[in-house]
């Protein structure tokens, strides 16, 4: 499994001015591992978790 670089914290790129992914990324082609992207208009990435508001709790948890 090829590991990509771990991006810690809320990485907001000045050049693009929007939030980049915040997670430990791994090559999605590794067997059995799926990689999905979740995108929102305004929510901060750190809030888009299983412990976040209802929307994210319901998608990622339950």
């Amino acid at each position, binding site marked *: 499994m090829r590991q990509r670089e771990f991006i810690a914290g809320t990485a907001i790129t000045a050049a693009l001015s929007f939030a980049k992914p*915040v*997670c430990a990324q791994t090559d999605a082609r590794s067997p059995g591992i799926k990689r999905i992207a979740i995108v*929102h*208009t305004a*929510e901060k990435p750190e809030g888009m978790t299983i412990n976040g508001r209802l*929307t*994210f709790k319901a998608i990622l948890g339950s």
Partner: protein
Amino acid sequence: MKRHGYVERQNLLVDRYSALGRSEHYGDLARTIIASHPDLIISLSGPIARQLKPLTTTIPILVSSGDPVAGGVVTNLAKPDGNITGVSVDAGLGVYDKRLQFLSETVRNLRNVRVLIPSSATMFWETGLAPLREAAGRVGIRIAAVLLSEKLDGAAYERVFDEMETDRVDGLMVAHQGEHLTNRQLIADLAAKHRLPAVYPHREFVDVGGLLSYGTDLGDAMLRLADMTDQVMKGAKPAGIPFYQQIKFELVLNRTTAKSLGLEFPVSLLAVADEVIE
């Protein structure tokens, strides 16, 4: 996802993207996501899904949107276009007429209403809400959109609430866009500060002090979106999965907020409410 056996960082990797309230970045954001080649994209925004749509015909896109047809995301809910499907969280824009009705039953002599909309959703106001404007006109209510600036932050919300006070607005309808949910506490607080009765699309607003909401169960919609995600990851084609439209709507009233605004919900409304928060 967890209930379908996915555990983040074990067998599921989640890249999280946000436009941070800047609609002018939707295009760049969409291109960045596509360039990262995820197995699947969950877009919690119709306008962003519209930006993603022309960029890929192979990566499945699951979208949560108000009205996906009116919003230009797909042309058919039963047989969605190509690689896109999802859930509608505001099934049928006629629900806005109902929200206006509930607001006018709560605020007697309602005359001057605004609909709070992010600038990215101008098309939604111009086309999707034409029936609402007609319905308001029939009962003598003046209704107009109040558009938030492209840089959607706390100052943008404060600015429009100040403008509404100057314009003597007596009722507010908060539209369904996700930006408002992110800022639900700020909106409820500003409505209280400006003593402006408001109707919201989801109960999450009423839980933090909003006056009343009428809309679908957002948690249930998101569970459906997770189910669809699982189906697609197991090989189902998005085109074979119809858009999910909720048929159950819930009316939630906040009596404490009503009292603080000097209002009382009529008995007719209390009788049909799904929940009354005291």
